[in-house]
């Protein structure tokens, strides 16, 4: 009969070798998450407030995922290593009422500008498409610096 100690030893060796399947797996390294833009809590709050106000009359979603400012960009900005400043982009899903959205954008742009910290961005850009005319994209920009 195999003694219990030897079985334990084999289990421990498996326990040491098993994580290597992940650690030395090139696919696992390839899957590592790229640094992406993460909203600050205060910005999240302002955007939620804006979203709620707009959603009273029409159903839209506000996205900030396509911003370049990721971990590296913000670190470079902190260390003054940036050659040029990026814009901060806020995208709306398709909207019905053009003038209503523009009015809300004008109301919230200064608040958002305050929350994103002006040091690292050149302009605040709002982008949206009209439901009736999908080919045309409206862009409204506010200079921060």
């Amino acid at each position, binding site marked *: 009969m195999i003694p219990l*100690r030897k079985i334990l030893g084999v289990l421990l060796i498996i326990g*040491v070798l098993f994580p290597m399947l992940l650690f030395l797996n090139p696919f696992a390294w390839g899957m590592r*998450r790229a640094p992406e833009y993460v909203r600050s809590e205060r910005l999240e709050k302002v955007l939620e407030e804006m979203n709620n106000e707009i959603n009273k009359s029409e159903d839209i979603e506000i996205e900030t995922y396509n911003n370049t400012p990721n971990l590296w960009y913000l*670190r470079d900005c902190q*260390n003054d290593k940036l050659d040029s400043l990026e814009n901060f982009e806020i995208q709306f899903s398709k909207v019905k009422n053009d003038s209503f959205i523009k009015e809300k954008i004008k109301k919230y742009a200064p608040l958002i500008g305050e929350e994103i910290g002006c040091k690292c961005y050149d302009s605040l850009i709002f982008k949206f498409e009209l439901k009736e005319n999908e080919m045309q994209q409206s862009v409204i920009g506010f200079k921060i610096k």
Partner: protein
Amino acid sequence: MKNSFLISVSFLKYQSAAYLFVILWTVLIAKVQSMFVIFKYTELINEVLFFIYFVVVLSSVILLIKQISRIYFSSESNIKRSVWIVVNIFLYYGVLLADLYLASQFRS
């Protein structure tokens, strides 16, 4: 002499201390980043650390397997050593995670 040194309790303790140091240093990098951004070459240092930790992990695999086989597959039983090796294996998992974290802290 060489064989018994690798499984001596004092060596197992030093091994744990080394693993703990690696883990704590990575926790510092993760939690107190403001301490590190004052260095101009933070990312380069992180990259060098990543490769050092990588070598530590790979050599640990060989070392741990040697230790386990000498402690668990010999007729002589020593509870103290058997417990230390298990502690070291858990700390080795911590070093693995630390290295995986550092992999995301430099630009490739």
